[in-house]
């Protein structure tokens, strides 16, 4: 068969969201790939220039449907850096706990999508079912199921609801039981290992050069986790490990995310134990000085950065968002070439795409 271009997207079951991966195949083997993005460009950076600082928080939630809390948290961190706001300690702990819950929920959603891509329907429904536990917790905490709008500049919106601690611990225990089940379900199956081990290898040098971050980079053997390396919030107080794997293939990426879920469970326990009493919110200033602020967090998908320029008014002059997936996708051709057509879903699924933050 002659070489031909195949459009995988913008409306295709492989693409989680609106984007287009054009692959050139020779028979079943990929010889070239070219991602095309921008189908979901909403101009959030421009929208934010016309909104006041508190109004942007719900907009920042809309950046990523998988882990919206991380983005509003990042936005609040950035603006607090710009305004020099000191956040109460209880708020910091609540934030850390909630974004770790969000990380678990996001990774479970990734696992669900990944399993669905590989054709493992059971993986899809079981993980989505267990994600529901954490979504319910976050709903009880924040009042919404997907776009939480929970962090505020100078704290968080609500205090913990009654009995939250008990429910959270129960959920964490449940999750740890479930994670073992997933290991049986995924790694226990020969076919899953056949589809993953040795597929889509991203070498360490390539990953570092191409700016890949997050689990995808850690799966290649680079220990770069902002929670450890450049700690923000109360992460220095937490005892956790950075999940690293050295192979750089799809299995390593899967493994890193699974390990991160274990570590997140640990962090949630610690945060609940160490949670101090006190205020969870302070009054934030309305206007920001004419300086720049920078916030960086470890998103479930990688290193998320916001850079905000204030001009003395109550609206940001410029808000730049660094999406981890945007950079990771640009590395996709490097990973894809040489593998089979069916591996595209495993590789791209393993990178955990989120087009909302990618196109902004």
């Amino acid at each position, binding site marked *: 068969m002659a070489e031909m271009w195949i459009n995988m997207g913008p409306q295709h079951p492989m693409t989680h969201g609106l984007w287009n991966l054009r692959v050139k195949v020779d028979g079943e083997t990929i010889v070239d790939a070219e991602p095309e*993005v*921008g189908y979901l*460009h909403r*101009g959030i*950076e*421009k929208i934010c220039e016309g909104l006041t600082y508190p109004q942007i928080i719900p907009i920042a939630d809309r950046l990523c449907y998988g882990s919206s809390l991380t983005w509003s948290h990042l936005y609040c961190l950035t603006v607090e*850096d710009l305004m*020099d706001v*000191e956040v109460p300690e209880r708020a910091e702990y609540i934030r850390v706990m909630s974004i770790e819950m969000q990380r678990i929920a996001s990774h479970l959603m990734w696992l669900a999508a990944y399993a669905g891509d590989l054709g493992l329907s059971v993986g899809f429904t079981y993980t989505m079912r267990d994600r529901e536990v954490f979504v319910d917790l976050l709903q009880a905490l924040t009042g919404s199921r997907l776009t939480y709008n929970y962090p505020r500049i100078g704290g968080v919106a609500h205090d913990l609801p009654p009995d939250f601690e008990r429910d959270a611990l129960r959920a964490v225990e449940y999750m740890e039981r479930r994670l073992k089940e997933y290991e049986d379900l995924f790694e226990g199956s020969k076919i899953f290992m056949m589809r993953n081990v040795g597929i889509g290898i991203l070498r360490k040098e*390539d990953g*570092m*050069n*191409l*700016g*890949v*971050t997050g689990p995808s980079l850690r799966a290649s053997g*680079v*220990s*770069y986790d902002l929670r450890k*390396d*450049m*700690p923000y919030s*109360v992460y*220095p107080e937490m005892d956790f490990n950075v999940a690293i794997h050295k192979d750089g293939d799809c299995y390593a990426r899967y493994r890193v995310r699974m390990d991160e879920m274990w570590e997140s469970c640990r962090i949630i326990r610690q945060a609940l134990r160490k949670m101090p009493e006190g205020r969870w919110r302070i009054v934030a200033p309305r206007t920001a000085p004419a300086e720049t602020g*920078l916030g*960086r967090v470890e998103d479930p998908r990688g*290193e998320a*950065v916001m*850079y905000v*320029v204030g001009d003395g008014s109550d609206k940001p*002059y*410029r808000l*730049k968002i*660094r999406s981890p997936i*945007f*950079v990771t*996708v*640009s*590395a996709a051709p490097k990973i894809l070439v040489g593998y089979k057509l069916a591996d595209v879903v495993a590789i791209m699924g393993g990178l955990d795409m989120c087009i909302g933050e990618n*196109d*902004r």
Partner: protein
Amino acid sequence: MSEGDERGRAGVVSIEKAPSRIDEDPGLRVLRAIADSFPEAVSGGTQLKPGVLRVHVERADLYSVCRNLKESLGFEHLTMISAVDYEDRFEIVYHITSYEARLLLELITSTPKDDPSVDSISTIWGGANWQEREAFDLMGVVFRSHPKLERILLPKDVLYHPLRKDFKG
């Protein structure tokens, strides 16, 4: 490191004021190294807070400074490229990370309004490729000798650069 030290801006130290501590702090050491290698191109090196540095660089020397940063100072990861449209200039801000030293360097270069162009650094950091395309797409900054400087988020036939301040709706 206590939380107050980490967050507050009280730790802003310029190189000239505290020469005795240069060798203790890795950030200041990096600032000094940059300033030594490119005495004319680099100005205003400050440490905003522990682990975050800021350096202004002339746009003509941007490429060589970046090459030096990657090859001798161990800044292996380009985090972000952001372009800001000020009233009198465009500022292109590069956030560059060093995995080893745990440093973030904010490299700022500015271009005049009528000629928003800088050298592309996508040959140094491959991750700069798409970010430069994005900056070109949304802000209209031209990156010279970029391998494929096309619009990326907007359709190919759009005539404007929406993040510029003179673009209204």
